[in-house]
């Protein structure tokens, strides 16, 4: 069974342009054996894209192919039945009147009955559902229902596995278990896997590549860690949870130090070398939360003192073991935001109205292309 899937080498390519009923301008690829996470807020069009790949929704124009076979272009629209994708909808779409076993063999009606049973049982066993074959979906837990849905999707030897928010409907402990199971399953599947999620951590944990999508536009594709560190624009930065976005101006480049100097209010910051940006150019730049270092922890590091800023704590909110800070930087209107452990906040005696100094790690500063 595993070999059957292993021989099905197929890459997915998709380009969609549509203006209605919802605008979608998407461009994505997923190699066989890779897991692509489609990440975006609710209503961004990611589930619609998944439905288009499955053939359940027809785009206005574009191109979808998988394993060299054209599934959709301007002359051709293959039905879901012809595409045979392994689709796991957000609420799993299990047939409530059928047992787990009947669900798992629901897509195998083209095979002889004995073969249907054999395959369905194999997949249920592989998804750790031994002994639950005769249970109806309403008699299974959320995690078990998801496993049945995955078994059903994979039993039919699909050319692609499509998962729509697969972990949104289960509790956190089940979710952790399912993460490991999906990561393990991925190693044995040599087909593209596309997972829709709004959770960046899921993408970081499980995905080989990630595509950001917002308002129906794919913004950026790449390795999750790269996108998190270097979002391509402000929208992408906000999607990956970056909150510290500022205006700046390029002052000069220092090839020897491999550094670009950036004016930030009345301050000068060192940032990664970007010689393509002309001095005097206005830019927008961003720094992730973990690039904002407080003196106590950064003292031990070799830190460029130029990136040290005096700040005043304007707001402080304690949430469990975490303290959320909003800080005012002299000559800068936008606040600097950071979440720090409660222990550190206590150590630094932080309180609203109090001044402290922070260091913005030069290597974490990311400048977007010129600000217009």
């Amino acid at each position, binding site marked *: 069974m595993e070999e059957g899937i292993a021989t099905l080498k197929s890459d997915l390519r998709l380009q969609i342009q549509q203006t209605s009923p919802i605008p979608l301008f998407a461009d994505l690829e997923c190699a066989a054996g890779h897991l692509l996470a489609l990440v975006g807020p609710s209503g961004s069009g990611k589930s619609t894209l998944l439905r288009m790949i499955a053939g*359940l929704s027809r785009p206005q124009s574009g191109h979808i192919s998988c394993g060299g076979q054209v599934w959709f272009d301007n002359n051709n629209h293959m039905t879901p039945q012809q595409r045979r*994708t392994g689709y796991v909808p957000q609420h799993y*779409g299990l047939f*409530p009147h059928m047992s787990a076993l009947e669900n798992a063999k*629901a897509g195998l009606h083209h095979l002889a009955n004995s073969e249907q049973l054999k395959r369905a049982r194999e997949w249920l066993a592989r998804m750790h559902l031994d002994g639950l074959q005769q249970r109806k979906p*309403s008699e299974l837990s959320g995690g078990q229902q998801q496993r049945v849905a995955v078994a059903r999707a994979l039993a*039919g030897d699909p050319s692609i596995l499509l998962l729509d928010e697969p972990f949104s409907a289960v509790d956190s402990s089940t979710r952790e278990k399912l993460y490991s199971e999906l990561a393990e399953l991925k190693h044995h599947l040599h087909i593209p896997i596309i997972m829709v999620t709004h959770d960046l951590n899921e993408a970081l944990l499980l995905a080989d590549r990630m595509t950001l999508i917002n308002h129906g536009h794919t913004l950026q594709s790449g390795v999750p860690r790269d996108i998190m560190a270097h979002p391509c624009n402000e929208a992408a930065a906000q999607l990956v949870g970056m909150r510290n976005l500022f205006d700046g101006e390029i002052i000069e480049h220092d090839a020897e130090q491999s550094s670009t100097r950036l004016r930030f209010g009345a301050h000068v910051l060192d940032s990664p070398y970007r010689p393509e940006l002309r001095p005097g150019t206005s830019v927008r730049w961003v720094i992730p939360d973990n690039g904002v270092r407080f003196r106590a922890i950064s003292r031990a590091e070799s830190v460029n003192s130029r990136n040290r800023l005096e700040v005043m704590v304007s707001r402080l909110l304690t949430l469990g073991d975490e303290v959320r800070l909003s800080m005012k930087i002299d000559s800068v209107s936008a606040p600097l935001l950071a979440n720090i452990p409660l222990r550190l906040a206590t150590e630094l005696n932080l309180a609203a109205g109090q001044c402290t100094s922070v260091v913005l790690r030069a290597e974490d500063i990311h400048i977007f292309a010129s600000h217009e």
Partner: protein
Amino acid sequence: MDWTALWLSLQLGFMTILLLISAALFGARWLAYRQFSGKPLLEALLAVPLVLPPTVVGYYLLVVLGTQSPVGHWIMHWTGQPLVFHFSGLLIASLIVNIPFAVQPMQRAFEAIPQDIRDAAACCGMSSWRALLTVELPLAWPGVLTAMVLSFAHTLGEFGVVLMVGGSLPGETRTIAISIYDRVQALDFDAAGQMSLILLVFSISILALANGLSGHFGRRHRYPEI
């Protein structure tokens, strides 16, 4: 006790279900899954028999199917008999007035099937037919049953339209409801009372049976909580 009238009513009820339910099933499924601009108007048209007085529906059927009309004339020409004051005319009238009773419960039942389930069926490679038979019908079954029971019970109790289109010809168009009216007119309260009681017991039994079956299927096929 007018056994002929009861038998005629039962015949009319069963034939109405037989002819109406399959057509209404596909219509209801189509209406449940499709969104189009004229949908509210079409739904309103199909629901008209619910709100219009039966005599109005009967009047228009008489006008359209009567031998003076082109339709009635054409039918008379080809079949050699008129539709009005004939069992076939009664059946057509019964089919038309029962459309909302047949379509609406089934439409609601199909609408209640989550999109995820229909999508999963398509991605499992099921054709529209296979999905209908193996997934949708087992889930929409309580709605189909309700449609059948409502149409049947309504046919048995229909009075105004039957009287307008069929009159009261014994063995041909005199249904049990008409017969009860006739008996009361003739001051034969014993016969009217007997027939009324039979109709009452029959209606209660069939509704109880339908509710029981519906609940049974509902419990067996409840959607999982996730």
